């Protein structure tokens, strides 16, 4: 009897907490998203209705930011994958006794506040930094091109900030590959490229899936990079939700946008997992 109850007793406190402070808020958010402004009421006063048109209004008003969120997040994820894969491969197979040191180095930038690092990028890419004048002198960028306050800076900042989230799962799954399978492939006359495509990549797929998800999900909801490194024309959905909450006090629209963002992410993620064919995620 006690044995059957043990797992449930272990789960109870944690799940009660998660239910109260994660599930209930999401349900509450769903309710908020269909509320209507009280006619003649003060700012921030809403009554519970079932106005699903909130979703349509919110989407139509912000479809640009919506598209931008997903576009930036996808580009940043692809870039991070391109940068992180060879890095993870190098750590797993080519680092010898320095493996642990290099792993610590991947996580180490995390220990400086990510806001400080993002602001550091803003200053490095800025007019007073050394990079822009150097590139101008070399003729790589023209006199009136700037690097900060551009979509380039936002995407670069996102790529940078989420890079460790990509590198670690990739490393974990590449490190598990038995190097003898790669040798075997070579023995069977596969060249380097074929070995990578037919052996290394399929075996590291769980890491690719986990890494892209851990990068894409926070990137799609991010607003800090856009706020620090961007301009008014690079605003993402996160920026809109934030300002709806704090500046305009328009809770229903903010809630509807949050819900749409979450639903869109879940749909994309489900499709992606289906396509990538991995189910061992957690």
């Amino acid at each position: 009897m006690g044995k059957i109850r043990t797992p449930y007793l272990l789960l109870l406190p944690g799940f009660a907490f998660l239910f109260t402070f994660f599930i209930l808020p999401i349900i509450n958010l769903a309710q908020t998203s269909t509320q209507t402004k009280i006619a003649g009421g003060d700012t921030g006063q809403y009554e519970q209705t079932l106005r699903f048109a909130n979703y349509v209004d919110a989407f139509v008003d912000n479809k640009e930011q919506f598209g931008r969120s997903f576009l930036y997040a996808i580009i940043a994820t692809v870039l991070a994958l391109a940068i992180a894969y060879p890095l993870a491969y190098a750590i797993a197979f080519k680092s010898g006794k320095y493996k642990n040191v290099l792993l610590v180095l991947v996580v180490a930038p995390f220990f400086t506040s990510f806001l400080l690092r993002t602001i550091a990028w803003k200053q490095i890419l800025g007019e007073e930094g050394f990079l822009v004048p150097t590139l101008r002198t070399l003729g790589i960028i023209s006199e009136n091109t700037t690097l900060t306050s551009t979509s380039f800076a936002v995407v670069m900042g996102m790529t940078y900030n989420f890079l460790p989230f990509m590198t670690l799962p990739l490393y974990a799954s590449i490190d598990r590959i038995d190097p003898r399978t790669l040798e075997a492939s070579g023995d069977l006359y596969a060249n380097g490229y074929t070995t990578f495509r037919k052996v290394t990549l399929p075996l590291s797929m769980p890491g690719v899936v986990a890494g892209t998800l851990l990068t894409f999900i926070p990137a799609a909801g991010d607003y800090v990079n856009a706020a620090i490194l961007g301009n008014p024309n690079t605003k993402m959905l996160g920026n809109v939700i934030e300002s709806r909450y704090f500046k305009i006090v328009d809770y229903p629209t903010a809630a509807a946008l949050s819900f749409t963002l979450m639903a869109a992410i879940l749909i994309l993620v489900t499709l992606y997992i289906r396509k990538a064919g991995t189910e061992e995620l957690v």
Partner: protein
Amino acid sequence: MSHKIKDATIPTIPLGARIQRWVGRNLIRIYAVIAFTYLFIPVAYTFAFSFNDSGKSNLIWKGFTLGNWQNPCGAPEVCSALGNSIKIGFLATFFSTILGTMIAFAIGRHKFKGRSTSNLLIFLPMATPEIVMGASLLSLFLVFKINPGFWPTVIAHIVFCISFVVVTVKARIASLDPRLEQAAMDLYANEFETFRRVTLPLVAPGIAGAALLAFSLSFDDFIITNFNSGTLTTFPKFIYVSAARGIPAQANVIGSAMFFLALTIVIVGQLVNRRKVR
């Protein structure tokens, strides 16, 4: 004959080809060096500018000083923000590590009805964008007329830390050799003794790693904190708010100090672990 021998001296490979071959062989190492440089540029920048004799706004290099390091609390609010972040970090780490470890043991060690649902419930917070989590929790607090502030922030941090603790500890539990526990049972240890003297010490490094992860997630969080902290200032919030009028160099001092502190903890941890393995 002699003519031929003379010809067979070791051919010298031209320098260009030699460089090419070396680059080809070490391409991935060269790449790794470039990637690490990219990762560390802003860290180095932050560290360098912690020595800037900058006055209020730390934008342009004005001269070297140790003054910021000698007086890290010199800028108004920096240290109270840091103190809040540390307090919140410790509380969130403590509670999320306990709750998360219990869940990890339940899922990792027991077969029961609802196990896959439990896995889903753990995965969901990780798949929810921070802004949605922060905003929804704030709506709940507002409904119950709870003012955002210190404890709402702690609660919010526990919510997003739990999943990461569960995943980390579960991975450690999964990597244990079940024969060790069987051996303890064979040696007449009861279930509780086996847990206390075999299982728990073996899982302990995983729990320590999870706690470290939870603390660094909590300490560095901005988005969820911004929604639930009201007028309370944490260290990331302090940086975000002061970004507009210029961040004092003391923030760079604290950021750099945290970097070296965390690096030291990780390295010492690894050394201790290695000695234990030996």
